[in-house]
């Protein structure tokens, strides 16, 4: 586990000192985070790091995970898709199971949640917990990590009543925020520069992935790291690769993904990807376990360019991770990718496989520009998207929630 001081080498001591000063008035406060999976997905990754750091700052912080059956995860996966805009009809039986699962989890978690000063509920899966806590004493905040800018209305209409009684909500981007009768704070997520996924690697470990996955180190490599999910458009990435390969015959593509425990749709998408790849030996489709962080890290560092051709995206932490490794990103012009990929500076935003191919060809033919963009990308992440900034914003929010109507809060 990394301590706050170990981040100082990357962020500067001033950032760590600031966190300590900000947290000082909240020492001893009881904080609980709740989500639906301990492993897999960006939320779990952030909580694995954020919770120990909040404890180190003197806040009594716990992380609880709700449990459900397959029907529960099928239902919440449908919520996820619908909130991102897909028309999804969810059977009534799944909705009843969703509510019952939350009621059961509420019973298990009641002592801890009722006693907490601040409760962060992450995403829709545990959202109904609040309804089953009439004797709660603390402040409850719903943290939405999903792109809800244009939700499928019937599903949003179903979920919204569960959110109305929260004291506040947090959204990754202002575009995602939906009308709710409480303050809606904006906090982009972050990456941990010291995690296995992002830490500097020895050259030998980077080189090892060439042999392991039969990649030719002497030919250009583009990579997309993502779950096999239609919104990530892995099939579109393969089409883009094909267009570019006409001009760059040596081009290689890696699609590296896994399957989170709450993602039953992944297998169907994976089959579509295999079909699209059509046994091309230069397309490597990797199904990596959820703890293959160093492998993903090495693959990103071994790549010339990282793609994230999503058609819908919450924030796109894989983009942040790639930029941290000094790689330019060709990303879909959507959601949080637009906050990170700045055209001609940190990468390119594209809307089609053809666009991805065009930008791939451009960068591979202008190595100096590719290098320069990578350098800028890393600095941009250092300034804005590291875990320490995220932690600071949570602390800020915990302070201002007590002064909802003040523009300026002066701590003693």
């Amino acid at each position: 586990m990394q301590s706050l001081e170990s981040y100082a080498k990357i962020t500067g001591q001033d950032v760590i000192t600031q966190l300590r000063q900000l947290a000082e008035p909240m020492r001893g406060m009881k904080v609980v985070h709740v989500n639906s999976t301990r492993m897999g997905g960006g939320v779990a990754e952030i909580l694995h790091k954020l919770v120990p750091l909040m404890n180190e700052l003197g806040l009594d912080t716990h992380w609880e995970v709700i449990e459900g059956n397959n029907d529960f995860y099928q239902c919440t996966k449908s919520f996820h898709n619908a909130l991102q805009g897909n028309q999804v009809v969810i059977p009534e039986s799944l909705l009843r199971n969703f509510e019952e699962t939350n009621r059961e989890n509420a019973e298990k978690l009641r002592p801890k949640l009722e006693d907490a000063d601040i409760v962060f509920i992450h995403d829709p899966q545990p959202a109904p917990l609040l309804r089953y806590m009439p004797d709660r004493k603390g402040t409850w905040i719903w943290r939405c990590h999903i792109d809800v800018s244009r939700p499928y209305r019937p599903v949003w209409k179903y979920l919204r009543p569960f959110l109305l009684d929260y004291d506040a909500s947090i959204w990754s981007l202002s575009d995602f925020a939906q009308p709710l009768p409480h303050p809606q704070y904006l906090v982009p997520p972050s990456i941990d520069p010291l995690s296995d996924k992002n830490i500097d690697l020895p050259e030998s470990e980077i080189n090892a992935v060439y042999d392991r996955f039969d990649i030719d180190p002497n030919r250009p490599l583009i990579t997309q790291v993502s779950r096999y999910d239609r919104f990530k458009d892995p099939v579109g990435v393969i089409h883009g690769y094909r267009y570019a390969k006409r001009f760059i015959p040596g081009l290689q593509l890696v699609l590296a993904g896994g399957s989170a425990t709450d993602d039953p749709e992944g297998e169907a998408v994976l089959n579509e990807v295999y079909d699209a790849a059509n046994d091309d030996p230069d397309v490597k489709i990797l199904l990596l376990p959820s703890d293959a962080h160093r492998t993903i890290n090495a693959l990103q560092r071994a790549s010339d360019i990282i793609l994230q051709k999503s058609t819908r995206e919450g924030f796109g932490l894989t983009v942040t991770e790639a930029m941290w490794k000094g790689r330019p990103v060709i990303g879909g012009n959507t959601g949080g990718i637009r906050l990170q990929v700045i055209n001609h500076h940190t990468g390119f935003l594209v809307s089609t496989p053809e666009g991805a191919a065009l930008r791939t060809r451009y960068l591979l033919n202008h190595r100096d520009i590719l290098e320069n963009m990578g350098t800028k990308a890393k600095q941009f992440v250092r300034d804005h998207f590291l875990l320490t900034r995220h932690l600071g914003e949570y602390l800020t929010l915990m302070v201002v929630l007590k002064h909802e109507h003040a523009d300026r809060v002066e701590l003693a």
Partner: protein
Amino acid sequence: MNNGTERQPFAFKDCTLAAIATGKRAQNLREMRDHLQHVDAGCIYYHFWGGRLRPQFDEPEFNNDFAAWCKHALRDDIVAERLSVVDPTGFDSLEDLRSEVIDILEERLYEREFIPWAKTEEQFSFIRSQIVVFGTQHSIDDPRELPGVFQDISASSIFYHFIDARRRTPDGKDDFSTWLGGLNGDYASLLARLADVDPYFVTLSELRDQLSGLFEEFFSHESTEGSN
């Protein structure tokens, strides 16, 4: 802070910003003007100043979000350029600043027969902010300590003292100038150089380096002169 008299120390403060979505969005100039008439004054603060503390690329083309949106989402260069010359420190209150922005938008609406629309996903989202201010352990009694202390000061502390101060203080000056101006000593040339620093087109880290270099140069020159 330290408004001041001689010997009053300069106590560095720091700040963080909470950004809050208002739910108000504009897709064209008319909607922007209409919302501007009613949004919380905190929105005006955020879109002129507060944005400096949130993720933005290090080569900002415009000094406020309204101008940037008119340029990039509406592709209306004329109104973008007019908005870009609005100096927020030149207004006594956020309400006066609000009126100026509305005037510029109305002038442009009057000029145009058809108003351009932004794409749905490029609407302007009005955001307001709450700022949290807290003390640090850094305090100096002598201006000559300024160059040394800068390496330990956070970028957001620079925001507080050099940018936020312009709205906070009656004469719209940064805190360093206010402090130095209240001391006995010949700081006229330093104050003039501080006044020349344009904080809007550099990152906060670059601004910190720029100020640090400026203090370093001034006080090293002063000590050289003193020893001669």
